[in-house]
């Protein structure tokens, strides 16, 4: 309990909240402490939007409904300039993606087809502070590339200005975005 309080106090940006926590601890009011700790949740996922593809939600960004989304996917072109397909071998994919390099697809991956699948079936994520961006996270049935030298089955796809593009994303990075 004490350690939870210390953590809570450190994380609380609001001194009043910290004082409330201190009082709840002093009164041994476990329910209140839990409630206050919940208020200062540090979960970076909090506040982002995770709409279901089938959901006809106005929060689903520009894809207000299934039909509009399908049309946008159908009309979107593959990006011309792909820095994520430089690698010609596994060794290059590891090397190029390490140390802050761009994530790399394996050379035999059909990127266009994979992106379309991601846009149709991926888990949707809309950043809470820029709802003009929509990401689609999709898991393939095999390793499709490397991100920071780590092999991955996952991609992060998006549509921007009528072009769809994507790159492999490792599960360390992915875990910031979605539960999987």
């Amino acid at each position, binding site marked *: 309990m004490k350690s939870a309080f210390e953590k809570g106090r450190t*994380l*609380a*940006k*609001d001194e009043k*909240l910290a004082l409330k926590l201190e009082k709840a601890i002093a009164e041994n009011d476990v329910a209140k402490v839990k409630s206050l700790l919940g*208020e*200062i*949740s*540090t979960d*970076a*996922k*909090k*506040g*982002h939007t995770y709409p279901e593809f089938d959901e006809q939600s106005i929060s689903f960004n520009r894809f207000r409904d299934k039909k509009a989304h399908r049309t946008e996917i159908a009309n979107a072109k593959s*990006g*011309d*300039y792909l*820095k*994520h397909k*430089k690698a010609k071998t596994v060794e290059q994919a590891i090397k190029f993606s390490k140390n*802050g*390099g*761009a*994530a790399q697809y394996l050379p035999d991956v059909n990127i266009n087809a994979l992106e379309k699948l991601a846009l149709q079936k991926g888990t949707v*994520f809309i*950043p*809470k*502070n*820029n*709802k*003009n*961006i929509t*990401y689609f996270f999709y898991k393939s049935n095999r390793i499709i590339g490397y*991100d*920071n030298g780590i092999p991955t089955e996952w991609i*992060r796809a*998006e549509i*921007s*200005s009528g*072009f769809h*593009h994507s*790159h492999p*994303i490792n599960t360390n*990075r992915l875990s*910031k*975005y979605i539960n999987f």
Partner: protein
Amino acid sequence: MRTQLFNEKDFEQITLTVNDDWKIIYNKLTIFDPEIHELTEEEFDFYTLGLFTQNMTQIESKNKKLLIDIGWYPDSEINGEFLLQMLPIKDGDCDWFNPVIEFRTRSLKQLVLKVEELTK
């Protein structure tokens, strides 16, 4: 309730000004300058997740046969920086191995000034 340090207004999209030779393919840069705001890692993840990524902006000039590519590396990490690359376009594709210019900065202001310098 946690004190809200930033909201959507702090992340409005930047309008880049380029001359007629250049075309913005896509642009996800916002007005939020990571150099100005000193955030903890937790705060950076909380407020900016999905906004500082490998694919942020591409601007092309078919006449000059050049592409400007901007990303944040390492992707989504507080200790990252913008990387701007100007690359030659050959046979409809970019030569990613031979950038004409590479420019790294954490400053949004410096980045935008560089884009304006390269596209004027």
